């Protein structure tokens, strides 16, 4: 049965919407395969606007890997803006893929990548527009398997009712494995319907099927236990880890959009995982261990990516890019190769270290030394010990002195507000730090032409981190501290004009906190918000805190829990957490000990350079640290 393109029905709607180009597809390196020749068909969704979703590495990698399989095809779909949503509803046009404009409901799998919980309402819009029942239990064999991945899938409980399945960790191998299971099941004539294929996936232990698990609660609202409700379903689900990044050099054919997107560059992931041990950082905890891509593979990927895309900027991605064991040679090698070609290189996520300035200098050889970014995260020495961000004030001042004296004029500093044990003085310490940074810049340059920008966000405790037990700071306190910091910075005659200040109000963090550590009961809140018009919660112009609180009150009425219970309440050691049956490899006792250490300002070193501190990931997952150096160098490109 072939599927017709929806484009003829979509096209007359496009002149009536903003930025219609985002809905037409046709990106360079995009793939349209024959519908009838594929036996397994994936619709991959990034649940945000096209301009955010298109550059997403995870979706691009899976799109390419699945399309390389001879009997599998993958297309992409993104959240449509409310203007098009309204027209699609009035004209009866369902959720479509941008590649061949096929209806999403016709696919076998709808795979959704959640980088953040704020995409949940957009999932509901897409399901509803696609004509797929919102509740997984209402779906028939005519509906795709709705599968979640991405970092937020490490606690998918708030969306458990809307998902058929979720996977944890690296997607490359598990996507292929899922495709294979579905292909075999379809070849056999789809015996037992969707429950059978879900059962086949669940029984491997690598795919979480929420409806095969029951959650039981204590009368006070805490979870008593989460247990399989049928035989053959494992009690724990494990995460997936790709062990040799050189074997997976994707994207090979980067998607180049016509529409403007947030990242107009070719990005290469230079390593995966991070063991710096920052206690607030969910990414660092759930992606262990560190696995480096070799310098030569990085060089090949950059060369190929620039040729395939025509981008004039290359980003070297990872959670802490300067930590690659051969980053110096990578930086110098690439800077040599692309000198004079108007190709710029960027290194996001760097730490406070003079070595970073050398790297930044390499990357700005021909360009302007405009701004450098560092993330001390905590405003006081004590705070940084609590979060295990091992940076002293001395380190920071020494680093910015080097930066300013080598011609950099602007330093951007990232911080968080609302961290565990935080007091007013810790946040106000940021003002003192910023003033010292400016003074260091003035001393180093002999000029008043130096600037510093303080950028500060609200902290949200995340699952699978030592702070998973912590009380989230209420938004009134966060907002008050941010205001006091603003006044301390702006009111300063000597330094105030040299310091920029960027902050957001604390309310959205409470909603993010509710969704991050929520359980299945939060799904009711989510649904009520969506029914009340909630969309695009990551966008301040669409987000409504009041709508969330209204919905929570209604949806949780009669339950012994409320928003505060999920957010500002500290958990006891043995409370069953909603994600305890989902295994990121981290030893729960180690996490608890690290939480205790945080409370007594005890730091922990990186296991790449010091002995293993038994976080539990490597033995549980059968993985190991993979780092260089390889000793190899990048050779100049041959001139054609």
């Amino acid at each position: 049965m072939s599927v017709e393109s929806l484009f003829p029905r979509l096209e007359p709607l496009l002149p009536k919407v903003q930025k219609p180009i985002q809905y037409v597809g046709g990106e360079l390196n995009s793939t349209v395969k024959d519908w009838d020749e594929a036996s397994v068909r994936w619709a991959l969704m990034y649940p945000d606007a096209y301009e955010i979703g298109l550059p997403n590495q995870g979706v691009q990698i899976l799109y390419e890997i699945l399309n390389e399989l001879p009997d599998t095809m993958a297309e992409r779909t993104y959240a449509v803006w409310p203007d098009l949503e309204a027209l699609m509803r009035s004209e009866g046009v369902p959720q479509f893929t941008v590649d061949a404009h096929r209806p999403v409901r016709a696919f076998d799998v709808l795979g959704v990548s959640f980088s953040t919980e704020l995409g949940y309402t957009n999932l509901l819009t897409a399901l509803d527009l696609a004509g797929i029942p919102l509740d997984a239990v209402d779906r028939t064999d005519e509906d795709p398997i709705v599968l979640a991945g991405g970092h937020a899938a490490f606690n998918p409980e708030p969306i458990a009712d809307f998902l058929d399945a979720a996977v944890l960790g690296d997607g490359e191998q598990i996507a292929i494995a899922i495709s294979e299971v579905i292909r075999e099941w379809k070849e056999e004539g789809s015996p037992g319907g969707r429950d059978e294929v879900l059962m086949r996936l669940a029984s491997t232990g690598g795919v979480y099927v929420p409806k095969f698990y029951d959650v039981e609660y204590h009368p006070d609202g805490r979870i008593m236990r989460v247990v399989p409700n049928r035989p053959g379903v494992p009690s724990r689900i494990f995460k997936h880890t790709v062990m040799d990044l050189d074997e997976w050099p994707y994207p090979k054919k980067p998607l180049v959009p016509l529409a403007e997107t947030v990242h107009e560059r070719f990005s290469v992931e230079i390593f995966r995982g991070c063991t710096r041990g920052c206690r607030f950082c969910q990414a660092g905890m759930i992606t262990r261990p560190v696995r480096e891509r070799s310098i030569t593979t990085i060089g090949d990927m950059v060369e190929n990516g620039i040729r395939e895309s025509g981008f004039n900027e290359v980003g070297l991605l990872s959670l802490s890019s300067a930590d690659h064991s051969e980053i110096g040679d990578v930086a110098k090698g690439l800077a040599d190769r692309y000198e004079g070609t108007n190709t710029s290189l960027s290194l996001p996520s760097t730490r406070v270290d003079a070595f970073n300035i050398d790297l930044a200098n390499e990357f700005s050889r021909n360009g302007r030394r405009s701004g450098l970014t560092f993330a001390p995260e905590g405003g006081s020495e004590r705070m940084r010990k609590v979060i295990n961000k091992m940076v002293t004030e001395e380190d920071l001042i020494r680093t910015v002195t080097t930066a300013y004296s080598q011609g950099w004029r602007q330093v951007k500093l990232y911080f968080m507000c609302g961290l565990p044990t935080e007091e007013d003085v810790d946040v106000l310490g940021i003002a003192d730090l910023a003033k010292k940074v400016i003074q260091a810049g003035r001393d180093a340059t002999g000029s008043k032409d130096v600037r510093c920008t303080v950028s500060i966000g609200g902290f949200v405790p995340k699952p699978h981190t030592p702070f998973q037990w912590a009380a989230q700071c209420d938004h009134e306190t966060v907002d008050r501290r941010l205001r006091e910091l603003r006044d301390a910075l702006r009111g300063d005659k000597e330094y105030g004009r040299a310091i920029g200040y960027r902050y957001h109000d604390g309310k959205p963090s409470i909603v993010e906190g509710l969704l991050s550590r929520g359980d299945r009961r939060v799904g009711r809140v989510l649904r009520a918000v969506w029914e009340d018009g909630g969309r695009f919660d990551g966008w301040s112009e669409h987000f409504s805190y009041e709508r969330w609180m209204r919905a929570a009150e209604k949806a949780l009425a009669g339950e012994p829990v409320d928003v505060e219970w999920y957010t500002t309440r500290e958990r006891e050691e043995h409370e069953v957490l909603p994600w305890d049956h989902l295994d990121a490899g981290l030893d729960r006792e180690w996490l608890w000990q690290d939480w205790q250490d945080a409370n007594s300002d005890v730091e922990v070193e990186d296991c790449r350079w010091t002995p293993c501190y038994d976080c539990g990931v490597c033995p549980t997952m059968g993985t190991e640290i993979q780092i260089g150096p390889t000793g190899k160098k990048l050779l100049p490109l041959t001139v054609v």
Partner: protein
Amino acid sequence: MAQRLRVRYAKRGRLRFTSHRDISRAVERAVRRADIPVAYSAGFSPHPKISYAGAAPTGVASEAEYLEIGVTRPCDPHRLRADLDASLPPGLDVLDVVEARDSGLADRLEGSMWELLLPGVDPEVAAKAVEEFVAADRVEVERLTKKGLRRFDAREAVLSLTVQDGPERAAGQEPDRLCVILRMVVRHATPAVRPDDVLTGLRLVAGLAPLSPPEVTRLAQGPLDATTGEPADPFDFDRVGGDR
């Protein structure tokens, strides 16, 4: 800069929804992929020397868009045509390339010929509306521009406006649905009179209203020929002395 090359390209099908900025990013990337030795401006943030003349609005297709590329070493226009076309996404198609002989391309684009496909319009009603529009001395229309709501005459710049023979099927329309094709030549003026301004005018003078958004295509752009009343090929001047 060793040479300037003038490029005529088309914006077709679904790529008519590209904006001018979308096209300029796509062209810059295509130039890099095709290894065209484009010249860069000097300064802290060098920009490739590519300039655009008279771009069609977002949502409007075109068979006659123009840009000019400065290169650091001489290039064969035929080869550049093939290389650039191969590097651009299908729907942005390179049609013609010549070496520039002067700096006056933008000035030579005096007028455009447009085709408008109006779904759900009765040909007789359209003919009547066109007649009334053409008979009018002035047709005042309003359009929201970047400077706010502007009011101007949409009639004078329209040199000709006719209903084409034979109703055709518009994309996405039922086969038996009526559809009218208009063709017009419009002189480039300030403020620019765009096809949608003429449509507004047709609605104002005769209540003509297509059922769904019209499909508009620019067919030609160039110096206005006094005898035919249509735009001629703006590259004719560059080709004098023998096409390469």
